[in-house]
Structures are given as structure tokens and as C-alpha cells.
């Protein structure tokens, strides 16, 4: 099974977390779907790697594969040089605390019957850490901007969504992870609260030298938090690029489609031509060759036969396409100058 390539991996210096050629198959035996198909991704120390894509592109499954919560049909996941794939459940329990997950639904991630201080302390105990004393729990709450005295005995029903996500973050931090895996951590929150959580996550990452994998469907959010952006489509990686380039000068036609679909304040031309009328094909029966070819204006016979592999097109910029878009800014979607806003 051909993957989307590993050209974008950075073996030196040794990355903190590497997923190489990961394939995950889901569904019953007669209807196997490759939710993730030969995806590679690495995360350096203190780096944030953003993963964007639409629903069904495999971004959440990729996170679950990194945590070994779904069996891998192929490939490997390494954390600080230790191979995680194939480890028994008992050994995995030793390693898994180093990878903490921040969930999309912050409320249902909390046990409704436990008060906040217990949620935090027990998280650490369950991860095999010594039970933190009250002072450490209070510190963790402080760190995420919650007043320990106020929320100490509250249950999740007495907290807002944003507060619940802060509790989740505090619980994860008490476990002292190496990598924080964020699965749409702000998409369930109100717009005015999203920025609070984004700033908090960025702050905590700097303070603790955490590495982050940040999965979201919101391009602007991913661009804002990431050092490197990975674009996924139907279980494959189509483009890997620095955040400022990826949407300003996309090289993969799918990235351009994503970009031009975004309607944004002060963005007078959101990609002139407008998106194609088609919708993503089923992951149960993906197109041969390049999976995007059925919606791609540039597709030809070669795209149906050969699967494109990621190749470098600029510094830190990789694209898996036989007919990549021009890299010059003129070919890219025009970007309104930011200065004209909020005079």
C-alpha cells in the first residue's frame, strides 16, 4: 500500500513524536475503510503541528492511532524514540500518560459526579502518577486561569464549556505530558470564549515546553496556533507547509479549495472562482490514484493511475500532487492587507 510519502519527516534532531506511514482500517470485515492511509507526521520539541481537513478525513483517527487506541493496520508510532506500536496494554499504560488528549466536547470528558479537585487528582492517579496534594491541584487550576477556591468543589454542571475545557487542560497538565493532542478543543465553545482557550493553550505550551498536535476543521484557528500545518483529505496527507504559506500560497488544489471556501470578515475576495460543486467521495470506496482527483480541476489520466507522493516544493513546504499549483503569490488567493482593519 503506497502511502503519501515521508519526505516531510525530520529525523534530525530526533523529533518528540513520530507517526510513520500509519494506516488504520475501520469498519466490519466486509466493508473495511482506510480511515487513515499511510500518513506520516512528526512533532519536534516544543512544536505545534496543526492538522486540518473536513469531517471524515481521518484527523481524529490519526490522533487515536498515536495513542494506540485503535489498532494500526500498518506503520509505526514512536515517542521519544520508543516504538509504541505493538506494545502490550500494560506497557502502553506506562507510556500513554506522556500523550494527553484534549477533547472536542469538554463537558462530557468530565465525570458528572466528581468535584473538580477530585477530577484533577484522580486523573494523575489513573495515569500512574503519585496522588497530587491539594496545593498542587490548586496550582494547576491557577495555571489554567481558574480560581481554585471558586471551582474546587464544583461539578461539571456548575461550569461553563470554557471552564470545563480549562479543567480538562489542568487535569492533563498534572500528568505532565510530553505531547498534548488537541482534538478540536475550541469548536464546541462560544466564539468569545474560544480565544481565551487558544491563548491559554499557547501560553501553557511555551511555559512547559510542550509539543502539540492540534486537530481542527477551522483553518484560521489552525493557522494561528501552528508552527507547521498538515492538510488531510480522505485519509491522506496532501500538503505540509508553514502556516503563513499554506493558505496564502497553497500548492495543492484541495488546500486552495478549502481556503476559497472560507468566508471571513474583511476578506473581500474569498477565492474568486468559488468551490467545486462536488462533495467528498466515500472513504469506503476511495478513488484510485490521487483521492482528490474526482473534485480536482487539474486531474488527468495520470492522477487516476499513480498516487502522488509528498515532494518538497519550497523550504518546509511539501505537496502530494502531480500538477501542483504555482508557488508565486500571484497564483495564490489574494490576501487582504491586515493593516486596513481596526484603525
Amino acid at each position: 500500500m503506497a502511502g503519501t510519502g515521508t519526505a516531510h519527516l525530520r529525523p534530525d534532531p530526533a523529533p518528540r513524536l513520530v507517526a510513520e506511514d500509519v494506516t488504520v482500517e475501520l469498519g466490519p470485515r466486509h466493508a473495511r475503510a482506510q480511515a487513515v492511509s499511510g500518513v506520516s507526521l512528526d512533532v519536534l520539541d516544543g512544536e505545534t503541528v496543526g492538522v486540518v481537513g473536513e469531517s471524515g478525513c481521518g484527523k481524529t483517527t490519526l490522533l487515536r492511532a498515536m495513542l494506540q487506541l485503535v489498532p494500526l493496520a500498518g506503520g509505526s508510532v514512536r515517542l521519544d524514540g520508543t516504538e509504541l506500536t505493538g506494545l502490550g496494554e500494560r506497557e502502553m499504560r506506562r507510556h500513554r500518560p506522556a500523550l494527553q488528549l484534549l477533547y472536542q466536547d469538554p463537558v462530557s470528558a468530565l465525570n458528572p459526579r466528581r468535584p473538580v479537585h477530585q477530577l484533577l487528582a484522580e486523573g494523575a492517579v489513573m495515569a500512574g502518577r503519585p496522588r497530587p496534594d491539594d496545593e498542587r491541584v490548586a496550582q494547576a487550576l491557577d495555571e489554567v486561569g481558574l480560581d481554585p477556591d471558586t471551582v474546587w468543589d464544583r461539578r461539571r454542571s456548575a461550569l461553563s464549556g470554557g471552564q470545563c475545557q480549562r479543567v480538562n487542560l489542568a487535569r492533563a497538565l498534572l500528568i505532565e505530558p510530553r505531547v498534548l493532542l488537541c482534538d478540536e478543543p475550541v469548536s464546541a465553545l462560544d466564539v468569545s470564549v474560544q480565544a481565551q482557550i487558544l491563548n491559554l493553550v499557547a501560553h501553557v505550551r511555551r511555559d512547559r515546553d510542550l509539543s502539540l498536535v492540534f486537530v481542527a476543521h477551522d483553518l484560521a484557528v489552525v493557522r494561528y496556533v501552528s508552527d507547521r500545518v498538515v492538510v488531510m483529505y480522505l485519509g491522506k496527507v496532501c500538503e505540509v507547509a508553514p502556516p503563513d504559506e499554506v493558505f496564502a500560497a497553497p500548492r495543492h488544489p484541495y488546500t486552495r479549495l478549502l481556503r476559497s471556501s472560507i468566508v471571513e470578515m474583511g476578506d473581500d475576495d474569498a477565492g474568486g472562482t468559488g468551490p467545486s460543486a462536488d462533495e467528498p467521495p466515500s472513504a469506503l470506496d476511495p478513488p484510485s490514484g490521487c483521492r482528490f482527483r474526482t473534485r480536482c480541476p487539474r486531474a488527468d489520466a495520470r492522477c487516476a493511475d499513480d498516487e502522488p507522493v509528498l515532494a518538497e516544493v519550497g523550504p518546509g513546504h511539501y505537496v502530494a500532487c502531480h500538477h501542483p499549483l504555482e508557488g508565486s503569490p500571484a497564483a495564490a488567493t489574494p490576501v487582504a492587507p491586515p493593516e486596513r482593519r481596526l484603525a
Partner: protein
Amino acid sequence: MVPDPISLLDVRDLRVRYATSKGMVHAVDGVSLTLARGEVLAVVGESGSGKSVLARSVMGLERDVTTARLTGDVRFDDQPILELGPRQRRALWARRIGMVFQNPLTSLNPVLRVGDQIAEVLRVHRSLGRRAATERAAELLAEVRIPSPRARLRQYPHELSGGMRQRVAIALAVACEPDLLIADEPTTALDVTVQRQVLDLLAQLTAEHGMATLLVTHDLGIAARYAHRTLVMYGGRVVEQGPADRLFDEASHPYTRGLVRSIPRLTARRDEPLEPIGGRPPDPRALPPGCRFAPRCPMAEDRCRHDDPSLRPGPHTTVACHLVGEVVA
């Protein structure tokens, strides 16, 4: 009261309260608005701001909620919606007012073929015969850009993708060429590449049919692009309204300004930190006295916590804030 002759919809001082076990919930608290034919008005707000209740009340739907208390006046083409009986209201729905809901899977009948659902509307409200109704249903599917519409007529909602379902829901809403279309978060459940298609379609239909459209959304970008005017709601109140394309550049209300600054945008510089609004939206069961935004407002003064500001003209928009004129970037 003499309604504005050109406005199709005229809402005056609408209040919607619900009696709950935890006390009175003031979902909509004194909202007035007008909407003319051919105009798109966006209602923007966060969850709990009252925007969906407003949309449903305009449709007359909240009248059927037994715990709801509605006061104020909603006039659609000079008919008082809130005073109409169930039969009269039902006569308006579909024929004159169409509605598109957030989740097409729950607004379509899961056990009826798509074609039959559309044909039923046409047969009931337009008195078309079976064959003519099916014919028109196929035309409607083509109009909402569904490929091979005749084949789709025979499919059930679960056989369609989310984007296709929402197109079917739009086809249903516009089947009888209503004068007013109410769209409540029509693309929130859809993927981004599909969202744009559906919104473009709505905009086109609004223009082609000369419909008035009330677009409820939490997405400021959508409001800015697709609406003529935007109304920003907070805690059941309108805090600001103005021309959609300029509102976000020239907003005066600290809440609107705060929203604009707290949203990451693709076209902003990445090194500019986001400026979140502190705190969280108010609980509609316990709204603060005075200005609803005062507890979160960085500029709030004493009077903001006691006196409720009313909407008045600001530099570029109409705004409910004591400090307008004094608010500077």
C-alpha cells in the same frame, strides 16, 4: 401603528420569556427590527443570545410552546403573526414564509422519499396534481444545483450527504416561492467546502425571487459577506446594528469590537495576539441589571451597571452603549 410601507417584516419590542423550574428565562428581551423585500438581514450572536428564539418567534413557532410568554408585535405583510390562530399561521408557512433549520437530517422526514416530501408541499399549498408536483419537484432540485435530480427524487434523506440534504431542505423552503425565508444556522452542520456552496445558493435564490431573508448565524464572516444589514444580539438584546460589510470594521459596541478582535482570521498577522473577551456570556436565567455586557466590558462605568442603554445612532451604526462616542480603539 403605521408599519413602514416597504418593510415586509416589522418586529416591535418583541419579548419572549419561558417559565422554567429554575425561574423565568428572558430569551428575547425587547427586540425590534424591520426587513424589506430583497434584503438579507443577519442576526449574529453566541449561543444563548436569543437569536434562534427570535427567528422562531417571527415564524410564529414559539406560540405553540406552552411555557413561552410572548409580548410585542410581529407584523408580516401587515398581519399580526402573534395574534393569528394556528390555522391562519399554518397558511402562511411554506406559502409565504419558508424556514431552513440547522440540521437537515431532523427537518426532513426520514421515511419519505425526497421527491414525495417536496411534492407533498406543492400539492397541499399549490394544489398541483401528482404528476405536476413531481415535475416541479425535479425542477426545484435542479434549481438548488442537485445533480441528476430525477434520480434523487426517489432517494431517502439518509442516502444523501449533509450538503445534499440541506439543499433539499432549501428546495422545500422555497418550493412555494415564499416572500420571507428564515434560515437558522443553515450551514453550521456542514463541512467548509460545502458551506460556501449552500450560502451562495441561498444568496442567489434571495436575489432571483426577491425574497427577504433572515439569516441567523454565529459566524461574523458569513454575516459580513452575505447580509446587507447585521444585527448583533447579546443576552436577548440587540446591542448593535448596521450595514453588514462595514459593521465589523466600524463597530462601536465594546462587545462587537471584542468579538472581532477575538477571532483568528486567515488574513490577520499571526504575531498579533488574540484579544479574548473576559468572562462568559450571561445566563439567561439571571441577566445582569443595566447593560447586559457590563460585567465583561473593560470600559464599564457605574451607570452601565444600573441603567440599561437603549439603541441610538452612533458614528457608523446604531448602538446600545452609554459610552458610544467615548469608545476609541
